[in-house]
């Protein structure tokens, strides 16, 4: 049981997909203009992650090694379509604000990365728990970032007025530069926390956890390799 719990909590803090593994950066930056969108995106990705992890773990002995990536992508795409139709039918406003990023969950590296790194090597229960933990970690970060950006850029949190009307909001935080900036600050905070605990800080985008690492490394002439500094104890 303790081990299973570990699989679950792993994704929430220690290996938080956005802040520690730095995967799924595109939706993180794009949809977090409001806290509500962050939750919507997070939950949609969580649903896909749990389902695809379960399916891939069940099929892990059937899928030939050579075609595993296309097979994973097809499975993920199937679940994304399901979620897409579900959101369209039951939460049309979320569908509208997530727009293109809802179908783009297919190419969200968190999902392929967990399929490749975890679900294809573990049995069903750990895979589901891992997916759930990772999904919740993703949702939490997105919601937090959405709250920060919404608060600074619009003076509201979850649509409720906080400072709107009293202080002129800084619209720049809702615009693309604000996304990069807030994410940068969040990563630096998570790095500071990791450093305090003696863990590795994130120097580079999540190379070691990226599903395409092996190709990228060749392409990038070893740029992933060179900076994986361990914090001085």
């Amino acid at each position: 049981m303790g081990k299973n719990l570990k699989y679950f909590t792993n994704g929430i803090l220690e290996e938080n997909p956005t802040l520690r593994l730095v995967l799924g950066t595109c939706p993180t930056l794009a949809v977090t203009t409001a806290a509500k969108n962050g939750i919507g995106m997070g939950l949609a990705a969580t649903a896909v992650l749990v389902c695809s992890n379960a399916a891939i773990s069940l099929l892990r002995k059937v899928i030939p090694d050579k075609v595993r990536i296309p097979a994973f992508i097809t499975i993920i795409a199937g679940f994304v379509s399901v979620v897409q139709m579900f959101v369209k039918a039951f939460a049309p406003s979320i569908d509208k604000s997530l727009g293109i990023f809802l179908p783009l969950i297919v190419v969200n590296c968190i999902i392929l990365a967990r399929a490749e790194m975890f679900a294809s090597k573990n049995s069903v229960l750990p895979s589901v728990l891992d997916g759930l933990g990772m999904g919740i970690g993703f949702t939490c970060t997105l919601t937090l970032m959405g709250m920060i950006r919404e608060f600074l850029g619009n003076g509201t949190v979850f649509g409720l007025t906080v400072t709107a009307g009293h202080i002129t909001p800084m619209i720049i935080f809702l615009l693309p530069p604000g996304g990069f900036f807030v994410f940068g600050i969040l990563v630096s905070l998570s790095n500071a926390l990791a450093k305090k605990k003696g863990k590795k800080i994130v120097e580079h985008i999540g190379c070691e956890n990226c599903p395409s690492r092996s190709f990228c490394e060749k392409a990038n002439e070893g740029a992933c390799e060179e900076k994986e500094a361990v914090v001085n104890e």
Partner: protein
Amino acid sequence: MNKVTAITSILLAGILTNNMVLSKFLGICPFLGVSKKVKTALSMSIAVTLVMVIATAVTWPIDTYILKDNLNYLQTVVFILVIAAIVQLIEIVLKKYIPPIYKALGIYLPLITTNCAVLGITLLNVQNNLDFVSSLFNAFAAGTGFLLAMILFAGVRERLETADIPEFLKGLPITLIAAALVSLSFLGFAGIGG
């Protein structure tokens, strides 16, 4: 609006105002991951542009003539599979017929299958009901915009290597903040090309 103006405005929007990376947040992974050197950034973006245009040329007819009416729910699945197949095909064809180009770009091709910029642009083209020619130009503009952003950012990052950075921003945070500044400068283009 006549055809030439329409296409010019698509090009301007795709490259500057609606820049794929800096204002639509598509393809952030390669933008942050493969932008360490100007040379690799250039090759990667050329490969992305090539795949984007070819993928659009294939997915647009599939969507318009097969999926649009009653198979719309298959869009996501079909598009990603078609893109994966196209990338494989391009790789095989280049390897066989144009080895020098394969040598320069081949390594980047497997990375492109799971690149959200490629799937994103093909989906945006059909969702915005662009016609075939406009879609191709839109894909080309998006690719060029990606190239511009990558090269500018690679230049910034080469300077960052030697810069004196505050301790708590070292590593990824300073890269993201640099990206914020590059993105801020692109906001200045807002309004160009309608």
